[in-house]
């Protein structure tokens, strides 16, 4: 039985998310209130498209919201997303609801209203931009637990002061551990006496935004 996902609103976001979900084997239905967008969306294979206002109960009913496992509301308006998720949750008993939110101040309120997952676009995007702009040493940074914990990939250049040192000789912040070292084709979980070599790729796990201090310590920049 395929997992059924209901997407409401969102223009290009809906399109790329729908394609990605369909490729992963989900059964996807989108609701969109502009005919133009609906026509574009209907070009996607195996996608059910409903033209209508997703904040109205009968439109959700047309889209078989009662059978959906996950409902994702990503219209541009916070109030619409709230109503979509509440209707899905309380009227159609959808197990998981996800809302996109513009105003970060309302995150707690949305959770309080019973929405399972609140994605604040502004917080997420500013976070990513900050990383991209200031941390060019990191190739990948994955935030988990709403960004409280980060997993970072740090390449060690030859000029790094950490090269040749054992892990315990490096003064890393308490909230950071080196979870893994990638050396060539080898993958190893380091211990305190593991030596860091130039060209290593370290996988850091950090909390409390300590990854910047750790990266500075490791790369010397």
């Amino acid at each position, binding site marked *: 039985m395929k997992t059924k996902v209901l997407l409401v609103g969102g223009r290009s976001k809906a399109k790329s998310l729908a394609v990605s979900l369909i490729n992963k084997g989900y059964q996807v239905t989108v609701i969109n209130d502009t005919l133009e967008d609906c026509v574009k969306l209907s070009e996607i294979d195996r996608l059910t498209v409903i033209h209508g206002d997703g904040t109205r109960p009968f439109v959700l009913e047309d889209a078989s919201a009662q059978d959906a496992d996950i409902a994702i509301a990503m219209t541009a308006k916070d*109030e*619409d997303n*709230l109503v979509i998720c509440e209707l899905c949750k309380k009227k159609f008993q959808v197990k998981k609801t996800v809302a996109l939110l513009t105003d970060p101040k309302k995150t707690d309120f949305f959770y309080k209203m019973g929405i399972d997952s609140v994605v604040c676009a502004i917080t997420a995007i500013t976070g990513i931009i900050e990383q991209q702009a200031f941390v060019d040493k990191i190739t990948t940074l994955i935030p988990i637990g709403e960004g409280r914990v980060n997993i970072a990939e740090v390449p060690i250049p030859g000029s790094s002061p950490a090269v040749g040192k054992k892990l315990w000789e490096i003064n890393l912040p308490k909230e950071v551990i080196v979870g893994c070292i990638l050396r060539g084709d080898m993958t190893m979980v380091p211990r305190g006496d593991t030596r860091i070599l130039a060209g290593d790729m370290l996988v850091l796990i950090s909390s409390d935004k300590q990854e910047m201090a750790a990266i500075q310590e490791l790369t010397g920049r």
Partner: protein
Amino acid sequence: MKIQISKQKNENYTIIIGCGRLGANLANTLSDNGEDVLIIDKNKEAFRKLSPAFGGLTLNGDATDLDILLEAQINNATTVIAVTNNDNANILVAQIAREIFHIERVIARLYDPEREYVYHEFGIDTICPAILSVKEIDKILSRPDMLKDRLQEAES
């Protein structure tokens, strides 16, 4: 001689969101009754609908923004009435008022009867113009002489 000004201290403080026809009329009426009223609207021009005698406050801003609600001193409000022309905005504001600020009386106007029915079940006081009109028209239709009576009343 002591002049005593008997100004009754009013404990009701009503915040109205949306200065449309309904919001403005409601604000005028409450203000005429001597109650403390504050009305919020995104559009400054909307406040022109208030009567010149309106004795309450106006606040220009988006009431779905928590900062604007705090500026309106929503903590001291006894009643919040959401009557913008957007159903979902009314729902959002009504739920913020109830869940975050614990306002005793929260009323939202919803145009869509179906949505009104659902949110009524969720425990928000809602009014729906369409349903109210239906009831009223039905009342008149069930008593054909009533309309005539009213017209005569108005003439005399």
